[in-house]
């Protein structure tokens, strides 16, 4: 039964910007439709148009039918009656979706009372029930809490509770888990499944994360440049994509299950909606482009058996030859290893961090400040990086990754512990030595928008470190750097805002390379980029590492990217290292219960694997670093501890585990009293 039917939906913004062009889909009862696309593909605008929430000045044409009732052109009062009752919406940012001055319970009760004739008490009771349904502990107490007292994951649960308060027929989720950490994301996705079971609603799931869609959706709609380019069942799309864009997208994702394969980037950038190419919008980036592609935009047409449709004139050919992304896209050459790598023990150590501690005082009072507590941001961590090695530092937000970075980059004496960069102790550096050492230690930031001064042309941005360290031949070096990262030397005259996100990140990398450093700290360098762009930047980082003999400290929350790029990995939890070792060891045989949960929470872009996987769901949120649990930091959420005998469990409460080597031969350690031992069949070891 079709509940929501969208037909030829078009949205044009002021200035003739066509954000959505001809989107059509049907959503059945209890069905999950995933809409995927990169930023700017029009996926969010589509859903806002369905809800009737677009700002004035947006022209909408086409038809949106809910239970056969036309929504486009419906008077605002009638729409208001439908919104929240028949259509629920879950937004990306749950903080701005709640009014900060009312309690969560009151806001959910209000949603109930607006659409149902019930008394205040009954609505409040219903709110508590709903909060219980979405898995909020002590719902009766938490209902009286204000939005800021909830954590991000909790807020998103409350948002789901509010969206399902009136038993909607359609739930529109706009990137509901993008702002959340993986373990929390796994929890929220689970709640979303529960919500769907309870209400039987159809879900439109909008996301850029192909892993999330693989695990949740029944059907998938792929959007590019405001247009649907492929629509079909989830298995069809993931295993047999027939539109080159989908094929490229799937080939460009770093996969945990096949880490060694080289990533395949899609060249170029998505077109601007104000200046679309004449024919197929994907043609300029398409490896299968023929002249006929420029003649006109292809329609979504059925391809092969089943319900799948693709917008590509060569889709039938792809179907016949059964091509996939790896065959049609040119696979970039892996960089040639210059010399056989020496064993780790023989290589020079470029960075050594030992028992690093960074505590922040928690102050209170306006006139007389007094210390009321301590934030244990980083609480005694140790790791080292050998020459030519990449160490991935992973963990959820609030675990102290960024603080660790800042401590290293500042090159000053830490509160406690030592930081040794290239054999020089940061506590014993003189002024001149510190400046000199900065040549060898550079950083690439997460947000390519914020990391480049918007008022400086790119040439000046790159020249700045060169001039500061007294290099001659600055213009020549700038041109050389731009070429090195895959840009044109003529780009030096442009300003950062003229570049796309991926290009800007390349400029950031070029700046870090300017002084020929030995160690580069990468602070989530690809997390702000779209997948097809991300692949190119990761490949660039890999190439540069081999070419220039760099070492990386790669900080990230995306474990698949780390699996791909890192040699060793350190997992952080609440200011401590939980597990450290080579990626092969840690990913294949995770020993710490936290690492296991983290790895199992990552959505894989593979529907079959997603369905058969067993998830370890963690309870609750990350505890506050101002009052971390005593002894083992993870004990409050540890799934392993729950299975221990009372006597064994007491050890977790009283004795702090330290990172211990698991096997004498393996480079792998975990801070757990009862590390998991994974039995690996003999064949899988090699």
């Amino acid at each position, binding site marked *: 039964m079709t509940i929501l039917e969208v037909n030829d939906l078009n949205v044009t913004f002021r200035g003739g910007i066509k954000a959505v062009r001809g989107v059509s889909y049907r959503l059945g009862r209890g069905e999950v439709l995933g809409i995927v696309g990169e930023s700017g593909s029009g996926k969010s605008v589509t859903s806002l148009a369905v809800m009737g929430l677009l700002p004035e000045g947006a022209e909408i044409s086409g038809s949106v039918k809910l239970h056969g009732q036309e929504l486009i052109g419906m008077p605002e009062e009638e729409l208001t009656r439908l919104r929240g009752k028949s259509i629920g919406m879950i937004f990306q940012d749950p903080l701005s979706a709640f009014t900060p001055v009312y309690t969560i319970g009151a806001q959910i009760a209000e949603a109930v009372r607006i659409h149902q004739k019930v008394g205040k008490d009954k609505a409040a009771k219903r709110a508590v029930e709903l909060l219980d349904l979405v898995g909020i502990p002590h719902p009766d107490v938490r209902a009286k809490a204000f939005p800021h007292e909830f954590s991000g994951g909790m807020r998103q649960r409350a948002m789901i509770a509010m969206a399902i308060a009136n038993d909607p027929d359609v739930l529109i989720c706009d990137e509901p888990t993008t702002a959340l950490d993986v373990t929390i994301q796994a929890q929220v996705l689970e709640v979303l499944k529960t919500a769907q079971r309870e209400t039987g609603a159809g879900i439109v799931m909008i996301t850029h994360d192909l892993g999330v869609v693989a695990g949740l959706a029944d059907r998938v709609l792929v959007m590019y440049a405001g247009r649907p380019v492929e629509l079909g069942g989830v298995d069809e799309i993931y295993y047999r994509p027939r539109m080159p864009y989908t094929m490229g997208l799937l080939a460009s994702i770093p996969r945990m299950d096949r880490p060694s394969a080289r990533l395949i980037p899609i060249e170029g950038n998505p077109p601007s909606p104000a200046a679309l190419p004449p024919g197929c919008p994907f043609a300029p980036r398409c490896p299968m482009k023929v002249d006929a592609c420029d003649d006109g935009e292809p329609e979504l047409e059925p391809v092969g058996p089943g319900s799948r449709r693709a917008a590509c004139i060569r889709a039938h050919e792809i179907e016949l030859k059964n091509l996939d992304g790896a065959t049609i896209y040119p696979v970039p050459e892996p960089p040639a290893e210059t010399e056989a790598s020496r064993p780790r023990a023989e290589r020079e150590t470029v960075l050594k961090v030992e028992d690093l501690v960074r505590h922040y005082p928690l102050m209170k009072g306006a006139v007389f400040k007094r210390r009321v507590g301590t934030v244990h941001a980083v609480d005694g961590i140790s790791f080292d990086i050998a020459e030519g090695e990449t160490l991935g530092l992973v963990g959820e937000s609030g675990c102290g990754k960024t603080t660790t970075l800042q401590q290293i*980059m500042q090159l000053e004496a830490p509160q406690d512990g030592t930081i040794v960069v290239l054999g020089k102790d940061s506590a014993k550096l003189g002024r001149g030595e*510190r*400046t000199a050492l900065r040549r060898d230690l*550079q950083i690439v930031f997460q947000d390519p928008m914020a*990391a480049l001064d918007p008022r*400086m042309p790119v040439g000046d941005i790159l020249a700045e*470190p060169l001039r500061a360290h007294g290099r001659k031949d600055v213009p020549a070096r700038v041109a050389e750097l731009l070429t090195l990262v895959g840009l044109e030397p003529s780009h030096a005259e442009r300003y950062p805002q003229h570049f796309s996100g991926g290009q800007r990140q390349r400029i950031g990398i070029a700046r870090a390379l300017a002084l020929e450093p030995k160690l580069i700290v990468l602070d989530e360098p690809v997390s702000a980029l779209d997948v097809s762009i991300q692949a190119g930047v990761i490949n660039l980082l890999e190439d540069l590492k081999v070419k220039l003999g760099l070492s990386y400290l790669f900080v990230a929350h995306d474990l698949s990217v780390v699996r791909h790029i890192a040699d060793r990995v350190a997992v952080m939890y609440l200011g401590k290292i939980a597990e450290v070792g080579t990626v092969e060891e840690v990913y294949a045989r995770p020993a710490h219960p936290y690492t296991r949960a983290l790895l199992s929470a990552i959505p894989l872009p593979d529907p079959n694997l997603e369905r058969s996987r067993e998830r370890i769901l963690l309870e609750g949120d990350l505890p506050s670093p101002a009052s971390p649990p005593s002894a083992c930091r993870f004990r409050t959420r540890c799934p392993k501890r729950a299975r221990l005998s009372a006597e064994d469990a007491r050890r977790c409460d009283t004795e702090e585990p330290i990172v211990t080597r698991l096997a004498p031969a393996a480079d792998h350690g975990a801070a757990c009293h009862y590390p998991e031992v994974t039995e690996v069949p003999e064949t899988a070891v090699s």
Partner: protein
Amino acid sequence: MRSKVVFARMLRNRQTRYGLIALLLLLLLAYVGPFFGPHDWLEKDFTAFMEPPSADHWWGTTQIGQDVYAVALHGMQKSIVIGFLVALISTGLAALVGASAGYFGGWLDKALMWGADLLLVLPSFLIIAIVSPNLRGGSWLWFVLLLAAFSWMITSRVVRSMTLSLREREYILAARYMGIPGWKIIIRHVVPNLSSLLIIDATLNVSAAIIGEAGLSFFGFGVQPPDVSLGTLIAAGSDKVPGYSWLFLFPSGLLVLLVLSVNLIGDGLRDALDPGSNS
């Protein structure tokens, strides 16, 4: 690119267009106008004292036979120069002090902001009134410095707080981790990124300085005779308004027009540079 957009957005605002045109005309009048007048501002016509406007003396004459047209335009020149100079110095000072205080923090921040607070609580009018007679015979530039010294504090506090947030931006961090000295970061990264605030502030400071100069000169603490400014002219004409209104009306009319046009431009600039601020 950006400046083009800003300029186009500014011109779209009708009041700003009027302001720009008015200011241009006033500047033309002040600097080109005297060449067309029949009299020099120092010239005294002993045949015409307190004459009303006529074909010979367009805006009338003063009690010592000076041509009001020539004198008023000369006064306006002085007022404009003082206004722009004061705005330039005080905004520059505010940017420097505010950005240093915000960027370096610590004791420097405390000392600079303490200084700014101290200047804020001192009654500037009184201080200038006391100090300026001692500079009699000195250059009018001293007066400019005095005016500037008392008008940078509030802006510097705004600049400081904006610098505090800029300091955490990644491009500033990047520069710091590159080993670039603090003062270079301030000049190269902090101040250019505050330029919209500073441009607006400088524009609004121009009109404030012109008014301030006129006010002080009115009471005899500003520009000293024989030099004239709009303030001294207004003061000289103010007691003769009933019978000899041209002595007062022309200089004060010029003052009102000048300040009004600068303010219109300032408002338009603010709306254009900072689209969030307009209603």
